[in-house]
């Protein structure tokens, strides 16, 4: 089981802030592929990966990063703090 968190418009588009999923995905990109295949709202949220960022266990990562050992994956748009 892996926890997936969504923030900002990714959260709004998918409709939930977090969920736990069972996955065999080896990389973030594979996990995104599984999520996209679920429902239209996921497909919409993940339609353009260049508009998204990902964090693995609360560290920024790339979409080709491996998921082995990861407990928490977060998807969100580019950050706009400050």
């Amino acid at each position: 089981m892996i926890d997936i968190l969504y923030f900002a418009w990714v959260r709004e588009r998918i409709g939930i802030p977090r969920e736990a999923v069972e996955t065999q995905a080896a990389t973030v990109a594979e996990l995104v592929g599984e999520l996209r295949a679920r429902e239209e709202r996921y497909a919409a949220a993940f339609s353009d990966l260049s508009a998204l960022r990902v964090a693995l266990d609360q560290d920024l990562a790339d979409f080709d990063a491996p998921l082995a050992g990861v407990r928490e994956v977060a998807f969100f748009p580019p950050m706009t703090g400050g």
Partner: protein
Amino acid sequence: MAVRVQPGPFDMGEEANAFAAAQTGGMGAIVTFTGVVRDVAGGLEAMEIEHYPGMTERALERIEAQARERWALGDVLILHRHGRMRPDEMIMMVATSARHRGDAFEAAEFLMDYLKSRAPFWKKEHTAQGAGWVAARDEDEDALSRW
């Protein structure tokens, strides 16, 4: 060293004075930056800031650590609010102290550049016409390239 993420307002002057009062070891230069909610297009009712609890503090502490590696700093403060705020309210501030002004200025700019693009905060603008997420600016991403 202090990283604080909080929903409520802060008093910039009190924070600056407390930061200055805590300095030791001949810190001759103190720089503060304060970010204020701007009503850019007119009609802004509220700015809402979402963040990623846990990762936020981690990211800010990492950014502070990077600044300390690059410049000879005395102390660093990073304070950022989340939740709803109105135009002209203060969103966040950073403060740096150093023996020399160049270090204090550069470190504060570095902290701001990294905070803008590498700390998990997202801004949503609420107007009478509706609400929308603020898009990331290319300039903010580009600003990182100078460090």
